[in-house]
C-alpha cells in the first residue's frame, strides 16, 4: 500500500438527508481508504443512492460534512464533483440516445480550444476502455441503436476513463451478463492498481465478496458498520447486518404443480427468436434463463402480445399474442423489464398506479369506484411491505426496490392466471427478494402459473420448478429443478455449449 492510503480519500461525518416525511440518510459517518474497492450495501430504500447523490453533488445534504483527502468538500453540482476527481455511474441509465457512442463517452470531458472541439488522447483512451469491456460496440454508432446492456456498458466505460480518482458505481451490473461482469471486474481491478478508489453498490452479494476490500452497511438510512471484507464471515453475516435476519433459501419441490398445460407456444420466430416452442402448466413456476440478449425479454413480450412474432400461442385454448390488452383480458400479466419506463407511472401516486390492469374491477359501467382503488392500494402496500409514508406518495419518490413492488402489485391486482415476470428482482434487495419469491410461490400454489425471465441463475434455481435454457434466440433445452440440478451444465448450455445432455 502506498503512502497515500494512510489518510482516507473520502469521508462523511454526521451526514443527513431529509425528504418530506422520510429521513433517507440519518447521521451517517464513515470513511473510505484510497485505492480500494469499497462496497456499500443495504436493503432497498436503505439510503445508498441518496448517499452517493450527495457525494456527487446531485443532492445537497440537510446537515453534516463531507471531506476529500481531509479537506472540506461541498459539491454544488456534478460538475464540481468531477472537478474534485469524483466520477459517478448512477443507478438509472444516463446516456444521450441522439449522440454517437464516442460522443457519449467523452460527454462533459471534451478537450476544447475557444469552445471548439479538438481531437485528443481522450478519444483513444475511452475507445480503448470500451474495447476492454465490450469490443463489439462500434464507437461511431448512434446510441439509440444499442440495447440496454450496451448502454450500461457505455456508461461504465465513460466513468472508468474519466481520469477521476474516485469512481462511484451504483448497481453497474444490474443489466449485464456474467461475461460482461467478468470483464468489468477486470477493469475495476486495473483501476484499483492505478490508485483509483471505487465505491461499489450492488445487491449481488457474490460480487461484493469477489471484488470488495471493505464494506459499509446501511439500514433504514443509518450507518451499521464499516469494516474490511476479510473480517466478514460470509454471506449470512452480511445479510444479517443488512436486515437482521437470514433469508437465504433453497429450492424445495412444490406439490401444486400439475400436468395440465395452460399455455402452449409453438414455433415463435422473429428477428431474434428462432423457432421457440414450449408449454407452461397450471400451478407451475417456470424459468427462462440465458445471457443478455438471449431472447428472454423477447419471449415474454411475445407471449404478452407486446411484440409481433410468427408462430402460435394458445392460452387456455384461446389464441393470444396480438396485443397486451388481449393478453390481460385472457388472464396474462407482465412485469416488464424496465420499471421506470415500461412499468410505472412515475408522475402518479401509488394509489393511482395499482389498479390500471384491471379496469373491470375498478369500475362500474365506466364509472370509477374509488373505494376499490383505495382498498387495493392499502392492501398491496401492506402485503408487499412497500415502504412509504402514504398511499398518495408519487411513485417517482420511491426507492428502486419499492418501485418494483408497485409494478408487481399492478400485476397482482390484475387477477391473472399467468404472471410473466421479466427480471422481477432486478435492483431489489435480498429481504424484498425473499418477499417477492414468497408471493410468487403462493400465486402458483393457488393454481396460477408463473414464468420468471431472469439472468440470475441463483434466482431461477431458487424458485423455478422447470427451467428453459436459452442461447442466441433459441430454446436449447429444459431442466427440471431439484436438489441434484447441475449448474455447470446450465452455464455450459447458455454460453453456447449446446444442450442435449439428458437430465
Amino acid at each position, binding site marked *: 500500500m502506498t503512502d497515500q492510503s494512510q489518510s482516507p480519500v473520502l469521508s462523511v461525518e454526521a451526514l443527513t438527508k431529509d425528504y418530506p416525511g422520510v429521513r433517507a440518510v440519518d447521521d451517517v459517518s464513515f470513511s473510505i481508504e484510497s485505492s480500494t474497492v469499497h462496497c456499500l450495501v443495504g436493503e432497498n430504500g436503505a439510503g445508498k443512492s441518496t448517499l452517493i447523490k450527495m457525494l456527487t453533488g446531485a443532492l445537497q445534504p440537510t446537515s453534516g460534512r463531507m471531506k476529500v483527502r481531509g479537506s472540506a468538500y461541498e459539491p454544488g453540482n456534478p460538475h464540481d464533483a468531477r472537478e474534485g476527481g469524483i466520477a459517478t455511474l448512477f443507478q438509472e441509465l444516463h446516456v444521450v440516445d441522439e449522440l454517437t457512442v464516442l460522443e457519449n463517452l467523452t460527454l462533459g*470531458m471534451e478537450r*476544447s480550444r475557444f469552445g471548439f472541439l479538438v481531437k485528443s488522447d481522450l478519444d483513444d483512451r475511452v475507445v480503448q476502455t470500451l474495447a476492454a469491456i465490450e469490443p463489439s460496440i*462500434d464507437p461511431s454508432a448512434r446510441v439509440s441503436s444499442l440495447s440496454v446492456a450496451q448502454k450500461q456498458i457505455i456508461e461504465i466505460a465513460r466513468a472508468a476513463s474519466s481520469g477521476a480518482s474516485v469512481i462511484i458505481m451504483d448497481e453497474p451490473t444490474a443489466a449485464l451478463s456474467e461475461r460482461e461482469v467478468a470483464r468489468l471486474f477486470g477493469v475495476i481491478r486495473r483501476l484499483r492498481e492505478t490508485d483509483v478508489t471505487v465505491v461499489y453498490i450492488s445487491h449481488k452479494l457474490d460480487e461484493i465478496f469477489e471484488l470488495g476490500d471493505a464494506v459499509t452497511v446501511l439500514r433504514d438510512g443509518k450507518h451499521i458498520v464499516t469494516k474490511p471484507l476479510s473480517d466478514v464471515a460470509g454471506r449470512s453475516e452480511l445479510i444479517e447486518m443488512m436486515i437482521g435476519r437470514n433469508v437465504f433459501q433453497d429450492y424445495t419441490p412444490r406439490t401444486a404443480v400439475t400436468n395440465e398445460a395452460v399455455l402452449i407456444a409453438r414455433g415463435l420466430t422473429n428477428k431474434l427468436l428462432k423457432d421457440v416452442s414450449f408449454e407452461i402448466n397450471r400451478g407451475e413456476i417456470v424459468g427462462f434463463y440465458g445471457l443478455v440478449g438471449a431472447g428472454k425479454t423477447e419471449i415474454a413480450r411475445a407471449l404478452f402480445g407486446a411484440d409481433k412474432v410468427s408462430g402460435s400461442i394458445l392460452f387456455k385454448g384461446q389464441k393470444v399474442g396480438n396485443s397486451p390488452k388481449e393478453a390481460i383480458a385472457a388472464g396474462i400479466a407482465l412485469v416488464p423489464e424496465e420499471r421506470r419506463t415500461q412499468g410505472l407511472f412515475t408522475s402518479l401516486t401509488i394509489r393511482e398506479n395499482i389498479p390500471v390492469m384491471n379496469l373491470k374491477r375498478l369500475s362500474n359501467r365506466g364509472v370509477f369506484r374509488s373505494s376499490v382503488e383505495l382498498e387495493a392500494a392499502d392492501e398491496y402496500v401492506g402485503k408487499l411491505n412497500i415502504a412509504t409514508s402514504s398511499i398518495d406518495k408519487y411513485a417517482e419518490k420511491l426507492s428502486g426496490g419499492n418501485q418494483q413492488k408497485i409494478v408487481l402489485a399492478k400485476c397482482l391486482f390484475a387477477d391473472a392466471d399467468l404472471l410473466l415476470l421479466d427480471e422481477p428482482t432486478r435492483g431489489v434487495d435480498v429481504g424484498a427478494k425473499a418477499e417477492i419469491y414468497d408471493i410468487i410461490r403462493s400465486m402458483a400454489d393457488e393454481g396460477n402459473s408463473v414464468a420468471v425471465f431472469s439472468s440470475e441463475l441463483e434466482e431461477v434455481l431458487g424458485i423455478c420448478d422447470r427451467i428453459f435454457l436459452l442461447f442466441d434466440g433459441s430454446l436449447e433445452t429444459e431442466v427440471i429443478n431439484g436438489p441434484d440440478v447441475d449448474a455447470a451444465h446450465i452455464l455450459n448450455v447458455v454460453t453456447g455449449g449446446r444442450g442435449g445432455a439428458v437430465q
Partner: protein
Amino acid sequence: MMSQSSTLAQPPATRGVRVAHFLRNYYIYFVLVAVVALLSVANLDKFDLFERGNFLNEKSIINILRVSAPLLTLAGAFTLLMVSGYIDLSVGSTMSLSAVIYALLAINGVPFLAAFAITMVAGAGLGAFNGFLVVRLKITPVIATLITLSLFKGMALLLVQDGVSAIKSGGGQKMPGWFNSYGREGTLLNLPMAFWVAVAVTLVLVIAQNRTLLGKYAAATGGNPTAAKLSGINTGKIVILLYVIVGVSAALAGIARSSFMSLGDPLSGDGMELTAILVVLLGGTAFSGGEGRVLRSFVGALIIMALTVGMLTVVPAYYQTLVLGAVLLAAAASNHLISRKETAS
C-alpha cells in the same frame, strides 16, 4: 462487428436502410428542387424557364432571397434552441421590438454601425431575459416565451406614438438614406447585405453545431438533460446562451425587416414564431429535442419562402394556407416513412 460471435454485435446495414438513411439526410433538398420545379412549370404556357415572368428568372429569385432574409437569419438559431429541447415563441415580438429600436435610433441620427450594434445588444438582452425566465425561474418554455411574446410586443407598441402604425419618416423627422440600403440594395450577386448576413449567421451556426462544445452540448441537453447535467455540463448556461443567440438572430432579422420596409413596424414580426416552427419542423428537427440540423432549416426556410412568394402569381392568395399546411403534413408523413424504413430491417 469486430467479433462475429458476440451476441451484442450489430447487424450490418442493408441496402434499403442505406437508401433510407440517404433520403433522410437529403430529402429536404429534394423538396426544394421539387417546389422550385413545380412553381416553374405551373406558371406558364411558355417553356423558357428563365424568361421574365417565370419563377426562375433572375429578378424573381433575387426578390425571394431578399424577402427571405429575416426568416433565413432566424432559422438556424431557432433550430439549435429546439435541438436543446427548448422553444422561443417570442421571436416575432423580439424581432418587432428590435425593428422599432433600430428605426428609432436611425431616425434620431445614430449612425448605421452604432444603431446596428445597439440593436444586437438589445436582442441579446431580450434573449437573456427569456433564458432567465426559463432557466432561473423555471417557467415552462412555452409559457415563459408566450409571456414575453406579449410583453415585447407591448413594449414595441409603446415605443411608437399613439395613432401611428410605425416609426417612419414624417412629422419633421426623416429616415436616413442608408436605412433602406441594407435590406434592399444589391451588393454581391445583386443581393443585399441583409441576405449575406443571414448566410453568414447560418454558416457560423453550422460550424457551431458541428465543431463546438455548444453544438454538442445542445444536442446532449435536448437528448437527455439529466445525463447532460450528470456529465457535468452546465445545461442552464447552455440554454441561456442559446436563448441569447436566438435573441441576437431575431434582432438581426428585425433589422433586415425594418431596413427592407424602411420603417420600424411594431407588428412586423407577428406570426414569425409559427413560420419559424414550420420551417424548422420541415427541416426535420425533432420537437422533443436532440435532433435537428441548422442547414436543413435554412433550406426549409427557402422552401417556405419560395412557396409563399412563388405561389402568388400562380393561384389566388387564399390557397396559401392550405398549401403550406399540406406541405407540412406531407413532409412530416414522408419523413416518418423514411425513418420507419431506416429502423426496419
